[in-house]
Each structure stands twice: as structure tokens, then as C-alpha cells.
């Protein structure tokens, strides 16, 4: 249970500054919290509410709308095996059974060592590459049970850390917008000039 760290609060303020209204930064800040702890803690939701000026209940309501925000601890690697039509036809059920046996957990569960969470997923829009799965939302295509074993071995021995960061990390490269390019926290109805991004487009 932890609030955002001081470094993340600084970052959170920068993110909030990009939006005309503080509460618009809610979802990016939830990603930040998930990156920090691997899932979204209650304290983080309270903290985010304070940062953007909404109640904890409003943060909770928004956060729970999204399947990809987790509210209980999950493994370092969240494995989503697609079970929708194309993948199902191409053997995703066998893949899931194999994964369950290999990891010793049922879909939805997390291994005791906290490394893997196994989830059943709906279509991941890679039907031509069926059966597919995602590890921390990074794709793996046309998997056989043997490929899956290899993947789990690689992940367990941290051989893929360059490619697949721990659960919660959205991107390895953090976006920074210099303050002069941000629109700033100005109430939309008070804005009389065109936003900066529109002006710069016009110049192109």
C-alpha cells in the first residue's frame, strides 16, 4: 500500500500541467501508479485524487472501468492468452491448458513466486498470427506449447528484460513535454487563442 513516490509526484505534476483541467490527468497518473507498484494500490488512488482534486471514489470509478488496471498484486509478468475465435481455432485452448499445467495455476491466478499471472483474454487483434498471447501487453505470435515453455523459461531467467519490462510499465521511454509546448492548466472557456499545437501545425 503506497502513495506515489516523491519522484513520481514531480512527474505527476508535470503530467497534470499538460491538461487544461487537472482531472484530465487521471488515467496517465493511474498508469504511473501501476508502474510504481505493479498494480494500483488504494493509497495511490487516494493520493491521485488529492493531486487532481477529485474524490477517491471518482478515481476508483474511473480506474475500475479499465480491465488493464489491476487492484490486487499481480505477477511481474502478466500473460494474456487470447481465446477468441481465430486463436481458439488455432489451438489457444491447448495453449492455456499447457500454461496452466506448466505454471501450476488456473487462469486468473498468480504463481507463488510472484512471477506470473495467467489470464484469459478476448481478441487482441492479431488474428492472422493465431494463436497469440501478450506478456505485459507485448505480443507473441503463433505459439506452440513448446514456444510457450521457451517463453516461460526466458522470462523466468530474466533473458527478456530488455524487451519486456515488469508489469505496469507502459513504455521504456518517458515522454517529456517542455512547458512552453504544453497547453497549460487554463480553463477551456478562458482560452481565446488557438492552442500551441494548432499554431505549430499551421506553420507546417
Amino acid at each position: 500500500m503506497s502513495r506515489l513516490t516523491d519522484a513520481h509526484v514531480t512527474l505527476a505534476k508535470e503530467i497534470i500541467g499538460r491538461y487544461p483541467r487537472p482531472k484530465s490527468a487521471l488515467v496517465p497518473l493511474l498508469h504511473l501508479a501501476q508502474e510504481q507498484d505493479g498494480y494500483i494500490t488504494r493509497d495511490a488512488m487516494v493520493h491521485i485524487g488529492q493531486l487532481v482534486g477529485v474524490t477517491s471514489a471518482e478515481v476508483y470509478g474511473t480506474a475500475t472501468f479499465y480491465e488493464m488496471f489491476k487492484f490486487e498484486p499481480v505477477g511481474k509478468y502478466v500473460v494474456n492468452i487470447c481465446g477468441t475465435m481465430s486463436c481458439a481455432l488455432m489451438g489457444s485452448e491447448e495453449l492455456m491448458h499447457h500454461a496452466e499445467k506448466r505454471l501450476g495455476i488456473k487462469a486468473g491466478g498468480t504463481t507463488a513466486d510472484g512471477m506470473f499471472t495467467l489470464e484469459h483474454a478476448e481478441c487482441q487483434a492479431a488474428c492472422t498470427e493465431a494463436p497469440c498471447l501478450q506478456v505485459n501487453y507485448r505480443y507473441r505470435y503463433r505459439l506452440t506449447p513448446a514456444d510457450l515453455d521457451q517463453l516461460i523459461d526466458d522470462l523466468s531467467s530474466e533473458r527478456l528484460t530488455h524487451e519486456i519490462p515488469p508489469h505496469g510499465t507502459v513504455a521504456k521511454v518517458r515522454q517529456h513535454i517542455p512547458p512552453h509546448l504544453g497547453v497549460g492548466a487554463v480553463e477551456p472557456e478562458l482560452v481565446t487563442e488557438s492552442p500551441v499545437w494548432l499554431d505549430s501545425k499551421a506553420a507546417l
Partner: protein
Amino acid sequence: MSTTESNIEPASQLDPNVVSMTINGKAVLARKGEWIIAAADRTEDFIPRFCYHPRMESVGVCRQCLVEVEGPRGPMMVVSCMTPVAQGQVVRTDTDIVKRAQEGMIELLLANHPLDCPVCDKGGECPLQDQAFSHGPGESRYIEEKRHYEKPIPISGLVFLDRERCILCDRCTRFADEVAGDPLITFIHRGNNTQVMTFPDEPFASYFSGNTVQICPVGALTAEPYRFKARPWDLQQQESTCTTCSVGCRTVVQSSRNEILRYQGVDSDPVNWGWLCDRGRFNFQSTNSQNRLATPLIKSDDGLKPASWTAALDETARALRHAQPGSIAILGGARGTNEDAWAWAQLADVLGVEMRDAQLDDGLPAEIFGYPGATIDDACSAATVILLAPDLKEELPVLYLRLRGAAEKKKIRIIEIATHDSGLTRYAWKSIMHEPGNQVQTVQDVLSAPEIKEQLGRGRVVLVAGRSNLAELAHNTMAAVDSIVTTVAQVSVLPVLRRGNVRGALSLGLAPRASNDAAAILEAAANGKIDCLILLGADPLSDVPDADLARRGVAGARFIIAIDTFLTNSSAHADIVLPAAAYGEKDGTTTNLEGRVTDVVQSITPHATSRPDWMMAAELATLLGNDLGILTLQDIQARISQTVVGFDGLSVSVAVRKNGVLISVPPVSPLQVHHEAVTKRNSYEYRLVVARKLYDEAVATAMSQSLSALATGAGVYVHPLDLERIGAKDGSSVRISSTGRSVVLPVYASMSVTRGTAFAPFNQKGVDIRELLQATDGVTDVQIANIS
């Protein structure tokens, strides 16, 4: 159809804001921007609905109000709660296709509904149940297992949530966000898993939570005090007015077997818009309390003993007869009806009582009514509202709702001048914090600022004025009020009053005369000048800010006659206690802060032998040989309308039973306000602010089981930096001392307290902050020392 259209064309041409349309072939005139469903309500073409509520924004989520509107490509299905009326629009609510759509919606809503109507509190008054009968298909094709959730879970101490019954209409969550400004409940998850929920372990602690129960169109939200108490068809109901505070919200009092079981808000357009605060809604429990006074009590050697009414009234009359001329005083009268106040004022006249005050040194002087008056609607439609008042969310919650709503919709701009942050601070255009005692200087500074001047010139200004700090003289506020009224053009005043009928009592003869206010009366009593002190529903030992003065006054009065519903701190010291009928047990009228007279209605017989205050006054007058000539309530009302200026013709008016009638107020002589400079600070480095919270030790709250636990308890609040300066921890004990007096209280950090001041809630359980207050002090400065 063409003939009806030609009939209404002229009207719509006259007023550009009126459109003519037809609903089911009937010609209708509607206001531009109005929704179809609102227009259809006027033509009595009832369209079924769940999410639509006329006092909230439309969201169109329940899809029950589908109707057909003619379009270029033929009839089109639209939700009537989100489709505005238009010129020449042709609406049909009765076609087969509409019927089929509405039946389909009901079938879908019922698919997951548990249909546990026989054990549901809503059964019998349930829009889902009613509309399933009137607009439903009569049977369901859904045979699968329904969705299951844990059956009712408490989302606060007052409200239970049953998610199985919920149809996700968004009424409660919209109310919490849009109307109350407390978005503590929200939709969580999505799709089939959507449910209404609070944040984990953070209850729906809103002062207005009871309204969500009232507007819930199913039995998903139920109120703890009413759960399994009655079936709607067994309830008797009377429309009445809430007298908990001076807003005077219209309510319906529902009772069964001579017991009040529930209050519901009634939509009164000029006052409460259907809303109630939880204190007003749930304090009916005190009326049913076992602690109510049952018989008169007479003091004997071993305490107060029950007596007959004959003996008690004889004894009272004897005491009044033997009192020295000019040594009788009356305190209180603001908790009763207009008729009660008038009758006691008549008795006071008969006895030659000069010393009377309906307030307990905790309000503003009656001269506040001498300024041009404003109504709640005036305040909500003014260009600018100046707040020089206590926290309205704590004291007059429904007035807070109205002003908050107006500010949120950017209809008004609020300029707040206060000693600490209030519920309205975040909605204020400008919020100026000042040190207690400095309001006059602050007001003058504020009024001379160019930006404020410009704003004040933009149209009508309403000053909402009340006693915001009980640790300083009312005089400070009156001087600031006077300063605003004499400087600002187009200003009118909406007085903030504490008790239900302060305005009525003051207007009907219980206003102090020649500066003999409550403080002066108690001082006279303390000096042995009062032979007979009549406490008319007044509890000076709990309510007068200066605790020492109240104690000395009550101890010094030779004979005390208390008229009350409970044995309070003060009435326990009385020589005679007469049990009074409570709210809901008597008929009459009441006057709210605007001067609006509405009726209060008897729903149940008075508890045990208790009776209305006016009857006691009439009987006492007769015993004293001065028959007032009143036998019935109607006699009093006739006399009031004949003799009291401003109240003429009110008693018989039907309007009193609806939105009420405003009394006309004759201007009183201008105030003589002399502002005294506030004494310089000495070593007492914190200036004290004492104000009320919604839940305190007030008898109707403390005697209502569901409300009594909600009070915060005694304590003192300072700014976090000041807490550091004191060297205390949050929650640890500190000694607070003013000159010669001190109390020990827990201290808490609060960002809403201005630095250099200390805030203490009034009348809370625990050590009494009033020990530090002196009625004669302009302000109260204290030292705070860490003792832990």
C-alpha cells in the same frame, strides 16, 4: 391536426421562447430548451421513466422514456428525457412501436432484478414495480440464473445498498455529484459488472445522503431508520414544513399507528426543490424517543416529581402572580410555531414582561430584518452573493445546496468573507479570509477593490448575513453588514438564522425590547433581579455561548418555568417543567428565514400528556384573570392576521399550504452601529472561532439514534503549521486558555483553518469550549499549550 396547429401559431410567434408542438395529436406550447418528457407531463401523457429527474441533468441511461418523433424519414425513436422540444414537432407516446420498445426495456431491466418485492421496503411505492405493471410486458423470457451480489451492504451509517435491485439509473450518483457536491458514490467496473459503490472503507458520508434513498426508483437504496418499519399503503401522510433549521423545507410527514416513521422532501420551487438534509430527514426519531417528557414536573425536596397539569399550571400561575413587577423574563420561543410565539407574547404583554428574547445570544439582533429583504430565489438569481455568514453547509444545508447549484451553473458569483473555509469556499468566486473581529476593515478593503467594485456593479447583490463566530460579539458582524448595505447599491439581505422559527418568534412579539436581549436577561438573573424565568423551549446552559453567564443566570433566577419536550440541561434546573408537544404533534404555521409563512401539520397525537405551547399560554392567562380570548388555533390565526403588521390575511390563505406566503416587513428604524476597534493581540496568540456543525448535541439530534453517533465530538482545529508551532501531534491534548479560564481538548490539524486562529465546533460531546467565552468580549484570544 392542421386546425390545432393554426390555433397555436400566434402564441409562438409572440414569444420567441415558446414553441408549439403536438403530443399524441394534442397541441402543446413548450418552452425552448425544455425536454419532451417535461412537456408531456403537462399534457398528462405520462411517459415512463427511471433516470429522468426534473431537478437534475438528463443523462438518458435507462432508455425507458422512448417515444416516437416524426422526422423527414418517418417516425423515429428518441429518448424523451434528452430530446428538446422543437417548433412543429410531432410526438407520439402511444403507438404500438413505442409500447413494444417500452415493454422491451422493462423486460431487460427486470432480467437481473431479484423481484423480491414482498420483502422490499420500496414495494408499493416503487417506480419499477408500478411501471412494470403499467408499461411492462407482463412476463419475462429470461430463465437463466440472475446476477447475484451480497445483499444489502451499508454504504454509510444511514444508507444501505442492495446492488441486485439496482437498475443503474445514475440518479443517486448524479445527485451526489451534481446536487450535493459530494461524489462519494460512483459507478465502478463496467458492462454487466457495473455497480454503484463507494471507495473501499470510505463511507458515503454526505449530509444529504437521505435524498438518494428518496429518489432511488427501485429498492436499491434504503434508509436505516425506515428499513422494515412500514408498508407504504399503511402510511398516513401530511404535507408540512421542516422546522429543524430556518430554511423551512417542505416535507411530507408519514406516520403509522400514531408513530412518525419517515419524512420525505416535497418539491417547493422557492425553497428546497425536493431536497432535505439528513439531520432534518432523520431527526423524527427524537419525537418517538422514550426520553420525552410525559407529565408536568414540580420540584420538591427530592428533585423534580411528576404532577398533574392542574397542579402544575396552578403553581405556575401562582409564581407569576407573586413575581415582582418587571421581574419576569421569557427566553426562547423560536422552536415553536408562529401561534405558540404569539400566544406567549400575548401572555408576556398581559404580565407586563419587558425582558424577552427568542434567541439565546447566538444570532444577530432582530434589526437585521430592517434591511431590504431577499428571498432564496433572489440570492440564487442575483449577480453577486456576498457571504458574511457561518458555514451554510453546516447550519442551513439546503440553502447551501441552492447557492452551490447556482454558483456551479455560473449563474451567481459568490464573494465569501469568512474566518475559515466553508462548504461554499470552493464554489466562491472570491474567498477572503480574515481574523475574527476584523470584518469591518476587511469588508471596507474588499468593497474598495476595483475588481470587486466592477462585479458589484453588474446587477443585484444579495448579502447572506449571519453570526459566523460565537466567540465574538454579534455587533462585529452587524457593523460589517451595515457597512456593506450603506456602500453597495441594489443590495438586499438574506438573514441566516439558527432555529426553525426565529423569524416568526421575533416578528410576533418575542423580540427583545430596549436592548434587553438574552445576555442582558441572564445577567439580570445572575444579579438576582429575575423572580421568574420562563424557558420557552430554550436551553441556555447548552446554547448560550458564554457558559459562565448561563450558569450564573440559571442559578440566580428565583423560579424557573421550563416548557420543553425533553428534560434538557436547563430544564433539569427548573422549578416547574411543562411537557410540550413536538413537531408533527401540533398544527400551526412557521416563518422561515426569508419571512415565508408555511404550515406545519399535526400527524400524530402529542406524546403522553404534552400539549402545544399556545394552549399553556392561554390557560395561564385565564388563571391569571386575563383571558386572551383564544380557544382554538384558528382564533390565534385570526388575531394574528388582524393585528400583526405583515401577517395580514395569511392564516386562511391556501398558499400557506403550498409554497408559503412572504410576510411584508415594515422597515424599522435605522441601526445605530458603532464599530469599536478590536483590541490588540497580547500574548494570547490564537483568535478563537466557535461555530456549529450540522451534527451536535442539539436535543433533536442527540435523541435520534441514527444521528447521535455522527457528531464529531469536542476538539480544537488549527492550521498544520500552527500545530507544529504548538509542538503537538494530531489528536493529542492541548490546554487552551483565555484570561482566567482554560480547558483541555484534543487538537487536530486542518487546512481549512486560517493561520493564527483556532476553530472549535460548538455544543459537542466532551469538554465545553464555551467555558472560554465571555458575552462582553469583542473577540476571544486564547493561548494553546501542548500538555502531552
